[in-house]
């Protein structure tokens, strides 16, 4: 019998630079230096990042990682120039992300574009040998998400999606509390969130000269330029941003699937309701109710927008949204779901007994990504989990859009007895953009 060795990652990393291997070379296609010769003293230092999309969250990532940033891309010239100033001359600037992906010095890309670009860019990054940190939600269609999972598996790439709530300590405590059965069998989870905005009253115009609108649209089907329909406002359109349920839902429901240990599956039935906005070009319903039914084990997930904030959330941080878990022995509230996740004191004080379920713990979301780039293990918000979370968001919006309950096979990832709904599993790309 062979005794399993104690696996010492640090020792492994130290040795890896000295490994004698097969010398492989091919003109024009370079191997990556970072992983061949990692520096254990400064774990992130050698992982050089290329940033695609540097507005909003993208600017946050850039400021955080500017020391390791070597390339920046944006379709908005003003944002690109501003980002260049943040990083300085060591960063090469691009308007076309494909040129950034072609740079061998880029080890990992940080994608913070509008959602409709996530899948295409992530897949192309994997095909170029890059690891990927991509903002949430992972994708806009079921097929996109599955293709992203396949790309990660095909090229053995690391993809972390930016639903950072899972990396918050409160989420871990809540997960330990729940998975150790402290509230018993959970039969219902109620998510609450505030409404989608009503708006979009500006006229259609020509795009501003600094914006390459054709590249902003990319794979998204054509729509005329409107300042209320791009950059910060794309979120309020069903196909582009998907509203609160796909934006914040990708946080709140990420924590739900994490706690419910349901990253590998999905609901079997989805019902949605909500009236469209009374005015303006924003498309997403201000108020929205979605009910997801899971089986084996049986539980329901409710997305209520707006929903009732539970009394237990009164003293919690970031309680404008979150989820309440109903078990047969009690309840638990987790507020937030993104950077400000919080939970009740009873969960924070809980010490898991030995021998209980093993729960992956991430200390910090970016750090978890960089750790996994080195170990080649899947991170806490890996693409399979993120695809399943995004699937919830997509399915909820689709049930609303089609105006009927949908029956879903979470294994085959197809709708049952609804040919039209199955047409929405994928959407053709504009121009030659495809997954």
């Amino acid at each position: 019998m062979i005794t399993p060795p104690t696996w010492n990652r640090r020792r492994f990393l130290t040795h890896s630079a000295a490994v004698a291997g097969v010398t492989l070379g091919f003109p024009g296609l370079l191997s990556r230096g970072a992983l061949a010769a990692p520096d254990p003293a400064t774990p992130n230092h050698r992982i050089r990042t290329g940033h695609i999309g540097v507005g909003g969250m993208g600017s946050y990532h850039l400021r955080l990682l500017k020391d390791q940033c070597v390339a920046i891309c944006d379709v908005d010239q003003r944002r690109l120039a501003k980002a260049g100033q943040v990083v300085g001359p060591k960063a090469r600037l691009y308007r076309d992300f494909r040129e950034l992906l072609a740079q061998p010095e880029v080890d990992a890309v940080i994608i913070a574009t509008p959602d409709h670009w996530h899948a295409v860019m992530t897949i192309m990054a994997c095909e170029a040998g890059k690891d990927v940190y991509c903002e949430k939600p992972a994708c806009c269609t079921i097929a996109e998400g599955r293709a992203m999972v396949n790309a990660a598996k095909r090229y053995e790439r690391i993809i972390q999606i930016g639903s950072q709530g899972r990396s918050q300590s409160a989420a871990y405590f809540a997960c330990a509390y729940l998975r150790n059965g402290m509230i018993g069998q959970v039969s219902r989870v109620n998510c609450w969130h505030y409404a989608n905005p009503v708006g979009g009253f500006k006229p259609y115009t020509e795009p501003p000269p600094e914006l390459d609108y054709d590249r902003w649209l990319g794979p998204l089907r054509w729509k005329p330029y409107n300042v209320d329909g791009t950059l910060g406002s794309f979120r309020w359109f069903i196909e582009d941003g998907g509203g609160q349920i796909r934006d914040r839902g990708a946080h709140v429901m990420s924590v739900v699937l994490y706690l419910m240990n349901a990253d590998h599956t999905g609901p079997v039935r989805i019902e949605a309701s909500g009236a469209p906005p009374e005015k303006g070009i924003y498309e997403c319903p201000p108020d929205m109710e979605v009910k997801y039914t899971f089986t084996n084990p049986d539980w329901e997930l409710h997305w209520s927008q707006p929903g009732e904030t539970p009394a237990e959330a009164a003293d919690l941080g970031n309680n404008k949204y979150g989820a309440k878990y109903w078990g047969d022995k009690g309840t638990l509230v987790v507020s937030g779901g993104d950077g400000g996740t919080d939970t009740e004191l009873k969960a924070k004080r809980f010490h898991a007994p030995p021998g209980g379920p093993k729960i992956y713990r991430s200390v910090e979301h970016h750090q978890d990504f960089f750790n996994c780039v080195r170990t080649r293990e899947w991170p806490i918000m890996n693409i399979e989990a993120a695809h399943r979370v995004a699937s919830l968001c997509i399915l909820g919006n689709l049930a609303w859009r089609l105006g009927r309950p949908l029956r879903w096979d979470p294994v085959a990832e197809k709708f049952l007895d609804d040919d039209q709904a199955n047409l929405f599993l994928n959407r053709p790309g504009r121009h030659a953009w495809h997954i």
Partner: protein
Amino acid sequence: MILCSDKLSLVLALGLGLTALPGGQAATATDLDAFLAKIRSDQGPLRVEAIMAAGPMGAPAVVPLGAVADGPEREPGIAARRALMNIAAYAGRPGGGDDRKAVAAALLQLLPPPHTKLVRTLTLELLSWTGDDAVVPAVAALCADPDPDVRDEAKRALQAIPGPASLKALIELAGKTDGEFRLAVFAALGQRAAPEAAEVLIAATASPDLQTVLAALDALARIGIAKDDRVKLPPWESLDSAQRLRLANSYLRWADQRAAKGATDDALAVYNLVLEHGPAEHLICAALIGAAHAAPDQAFDAVLKALAHQENTVRLTAVHLLEQQHGDDAKTTALLEAYKQASPLSRELLLRVLAAWNHQKLGN
């Protein structure tokens, strides 16, 4: 307070127009007039009520709604477009066959000018929700529209509309268009992954234009056609690094498709080529993964050898693949033999694999 499920049922009922038209009756002319009046209203709540009840209004409402959608009044125009979407969604419901055909036929009337570009492109989208072979000629005709955005929407609709007619239209289009649009049509054919498209794509590999050749090869890879001597590959030396990467990815995709179709030899030939030449570490990972899935026993030696690769990613891919294999006696012996020759790091990796296999045995 209304319970969540009750509230849900109520709003769902409203959304399906059940209160507007009880018993599934067809909309009358009076119903339609009242509906359109609400769509044109300057009162937001009335417009919303009409949008939510639009579905059962069906085909007769399509052309009048198109007129409102084209019109100068912004909010009624938005409401009309949303009502059209609900009509298309409702018509495509399970069992809604005749409604769907009728709505698709009505939508065709919104395609030509002078309807606005906004309405024409929305209509093409809605035809992709409701259309079948019958709408294809009208949609295909718009692939020659002077407006490139309309052309592209028509191409997208052809990709989405199920059935042989849309595929045939795309194939014909691939043979007669040029430039960027032709590349987009190739991409659409690749997404359809239909073997019927192979001939036109194979012919395109003889194009003097490199982008055309690479796009055709990418689509052929997705289809996973059998080996064909007529497929022309660009000389490797003529390609820049990005083009080489693209071609290599197409090779690997084709190999994966061939493996999925049971043509293991075709697949292994590509995987081995990549492993032999090792153009980039992630391609080596992909080849190892493909080979190990297609023929685990045949790939065993290559995967074992990869434990000593210079790249961390390749080594760990090899570990993951070996851990997933069934460690029978022969493989265990091979691993122990390799251990004797291995570097300290490779020994650690080998031990990790042996430990995993040992766990498998204990588990069994």
